[in-house]
């Protein structure tokens, strides 16, 4: 394949959904079916183009395959300023795999939405907003795809922010609901905190090397600019600072501790949006970013922080997931937890496993979310699992897809999640063995999370699909959606099988095309550490596999005991924990309380109030009113003159006849309508130009 063709395809991939966004926004409501086929078709074409790029990469079969092209966007060199922004497209194995995954998931999610966003008679459930829903979906996907093909942090950051906007629009899609409106603002503001860090990191990076391009960054790393002592600040090397600041962006976008609060609330959006945000796009973008800047993180020794935050998030989100009764909330916390795994994997240096889990998780999580959407649709928008039960027979496609995806996320053999999670756990175990001490906490967190994941995911399956129906009215009416709703589920469930990612028959062998093609950037400066990290995985491999199988089996078994066979009453299981544990979990560890009551009300509000007082007392009273006093004195004098000289003498003298006639006719113009004034001004200006054209031009 011609390289220039690939570049053209890569540019078209985000442009097609972007075009769909504009079409949908402009004329969406007037198109047949409100234009859902425009968005869906555009992303499907992008998917076809992505397969072309993927097959080119597959044909090359080289871990360091790169097709890149860049253009100069801004160059102030001629003005003597060292400011030059190059932007471009970079296709390598990472972006080729990512493009395929994003376009595939997004296509299926669009297709699913054409069913989910309609009511049971096939009418759009939200009237004309059906068209805007698809326009937002298109914009969201376009931004994600633009982010993936970016060869530089600048366009990546722009797409990143567009995604922030779209998440706001989509999470708050049911805007009549107060909770949805709040959730959208929360998501936007919380990610903004992380984005500030990312932006500062980018500024520091540009100040240091004068470029945003990944190639230039890697080259500068190799040249030692990042580690040069004269570029360090307060004892931290430039690489450490920039790496940490960029990681802040990931913490916000991928909802890691301590900025995780927005993601569970994001469940207020329609379910296909949750699937898109939690699987293919938004949260994946954060992990994709740190995978891209992995060399900076490694050179700057930021990886232990990354690992700590990832490991902590994985465990603490998994604990929260156990007590949720809303089917989507369980999945939300499981996303947090799995993202923690990806970040943890990168933190212990396993580049490949982190990206592997990103891809496998995207597929099975998109499947899980759409399955939950299908359940919610079947139950007429009932989301509480306590009202479900026994649905397996009613909606078999959904049940089997969800069952397979659950096995995948629980880490059962024969499914994709087993392979990627096993690689991560092997690395974590090797890391713990090598470093000892506190790093064992990571190991414990990794394995406990694996067990808990199996437990709460099967709790979801048992509560939803098995047992007796709790709401007979909804149960009797429950039925599968049309083909556009079950086809995406079945496809994604099929893609959760192990063989897709390895090409091997052996389900325990993670080594395959994926692990061969996805390798850390080949930089001499990284060579040592990458070799060391590979050792970790190698050492931990066998014990980690056995241990992860054991914990997953235990998790599933306990889940079956409690929620499947009901041998142990769930209340008894809950009773063994002290009260404060329940209180902490029910209040989400008091994070929302802390941010709103303490950080904002006690920290930011007094600050804001202080400036309000300054504004009121100093600026308004002191300056404005002070001037007013001076003016008042002057006014008194002038009034006197006005009264005696002007009014008495001139006005009264000339009489009221002519002025009052003129006044009442001009009064019509002065009607208080700003637009009328402006029209008069514009017309007057045009007439002025017309008559003075000889003089002026």
């Amino acid at each position, binding site marked *: 394949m011609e390289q220039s063709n690939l570049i053209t395809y890569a540019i078209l991939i985000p442009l097609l959904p972007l075009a769909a966004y504009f079409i949908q926004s402009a004329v969406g409501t007037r198109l047949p079916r409100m234009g859902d086929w425009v968005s869906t078709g555009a992303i499907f074409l992008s998917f076809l183009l992505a397969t072309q790029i993927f097959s080119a990469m597959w044909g090359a079969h080289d871990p360091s395959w790169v097709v890149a092209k860049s253009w100069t966007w801004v160059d102030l060199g001629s003005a003597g300023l060292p400011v030059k922004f190059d932007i471009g497209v970079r296709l390598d194995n990472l972006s080729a795999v990512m493009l395929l995954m994003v376009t595939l998931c997004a296509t299926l999610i669009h297709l699913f939405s054409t069913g989910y966003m309609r009511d049971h008679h096939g009418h759009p459930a939200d009237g004309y907003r059906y068209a805007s829903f698809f326009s937002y979906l298109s914009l969201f996907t376009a931004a994600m795809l633009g982010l993936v093909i970016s060869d530089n942090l600048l366009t990546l950051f722009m797409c990143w922010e567009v995604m922030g906007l779209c998440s706001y629009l989509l999470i708050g899609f049911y805007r009549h609901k107060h909770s949805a409106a709040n959730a959208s603002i929360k998501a936007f503001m919380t990610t903004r905190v992380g984005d500030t860090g990312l932006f500062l990191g980018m500024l520091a990076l540009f100040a240091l090397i004068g470029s945003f391009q990944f190639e230039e960054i890697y080259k500068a790393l190799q040249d030692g600019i990042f580690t040069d002592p004269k570029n360090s600040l307060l004892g931290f090397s430039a690489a450490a600072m920039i790496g940490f600041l960029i990681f802040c962006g990931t913490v916000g976008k991928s909802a890691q501790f301590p900025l995780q609060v927005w993601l569970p609330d994001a469940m207020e959006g329609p379910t296909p949006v949750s699937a898109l945000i939690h699987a293919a796009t938004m949260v994946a973008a954060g992990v994709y970013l740190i995978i891209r800047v992995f060399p900076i993180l490694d050179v700057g020794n930021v990886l232990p922080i990354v690992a700590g935050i990832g490991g902590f998030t994985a465990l603490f989100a998994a604990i929260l997931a156990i007590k949720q009764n809303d089917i989507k909330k369980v999945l939300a916390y499981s996303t947090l937890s799995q993202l923690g795994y990806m970040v943890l994997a990168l933190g212990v240096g396993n580049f490949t496993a982190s990206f592997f889990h990103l891809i496998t998780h995207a597929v099975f999580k998109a499947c899980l979310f759409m399955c939950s959407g299908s359940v919610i649709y079947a139950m007429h928008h009932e989301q509480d699992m306590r009202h479900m039960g026994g649905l397996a027979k009613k909606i078999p496609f959904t049940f089997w897809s969800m069952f397979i995806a659950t096995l995948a996320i629980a880490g059962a053999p024969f499914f994709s999640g087993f392979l990627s999670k096993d690689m991560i756990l092997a690395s974590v175990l090797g890391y713990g063995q090598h470093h000892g001490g506190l790093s064992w906490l990571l190991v414990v967190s990794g394995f406990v999370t694996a067990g808990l994941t199996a437990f709460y995911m099967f709790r979801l399956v048992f509560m939803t699909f098995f047992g007796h129906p709790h709401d007979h009215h909804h149960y009797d009416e429950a039925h599968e959606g049309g083909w556009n709703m079950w086809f995406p589920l079945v496809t994604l469930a099929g893609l959760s099988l192990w063989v897709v990612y390895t090409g091997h028959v052996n389900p325990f062998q993670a080594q395959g095309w994926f692990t061969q093609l996805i390798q850390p950037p080949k930089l001499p400066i990284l060579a040592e550490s990458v070799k060391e990290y590979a050792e970790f995985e190698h050492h931990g491999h066998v014990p980690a596999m056995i241990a992860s199988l054991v914990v997953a089996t235990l998790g599933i078994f306990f889940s079956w005991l409690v929620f499947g066979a009901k041998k142990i009453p769930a209340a008894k299981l809950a009773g063994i924990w002290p009260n404060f544990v329940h209180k902490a979990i029910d209040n989400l560890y008091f994070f929302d309380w802390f941010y709103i009551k303490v950080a904002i009300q006690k920290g930011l509000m007094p600050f804001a109030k202080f400036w309000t007082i300054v504004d009121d007392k100093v600026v308004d009273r002191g300056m404005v009113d002070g001037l007013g006093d001076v003016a008042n004195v002057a006014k008194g004098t002038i009034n006197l003159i006005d009264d005696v000289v002007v009014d008495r003498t001139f006005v009264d003298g000339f009489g009221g006849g002519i002025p009052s006639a003129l006044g009442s006719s*001009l009064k019509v113009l002065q*009607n*208080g*309508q*700003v*637009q009328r004034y402006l029209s008069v001004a*514009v017309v007057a200006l045009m007439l002025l130009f017309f008559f003075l054209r000889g003089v002026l031009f």
Partner: protein
Amino acid sequence: MLAGLSTNLGLYLGLSAVFFAFGVLTVLTRKNAVGLFMGVELMLNGAALNFVAFQTFRPGTHDSWLHGHVFSLFIIILAAIEAAVALAIVLRVFAARRTIDPDRATELRG
């Protein structure tokens, strides 16, 4: 084709004029204050495009001054500030009278 475009100043000025005219039209006809401000943004950006175009096409561009570009950067920043202030006003107007139709805000009539 693209090379031909980039040598023709008239096209840029035409586009800028079109932006400006659409902006004026929007400001004059919208019955929603937010739409009105969008029109103002269009006008501002039409003007900014003019600056950039003249800077790019003026003879002897290779000296070290970038007045046009810098001016348009100022316009962008001012437009952002204007939008923030304007939206705050719109919010206050809405809070006071539950509508943001500019035709209904006629306290200042003679």
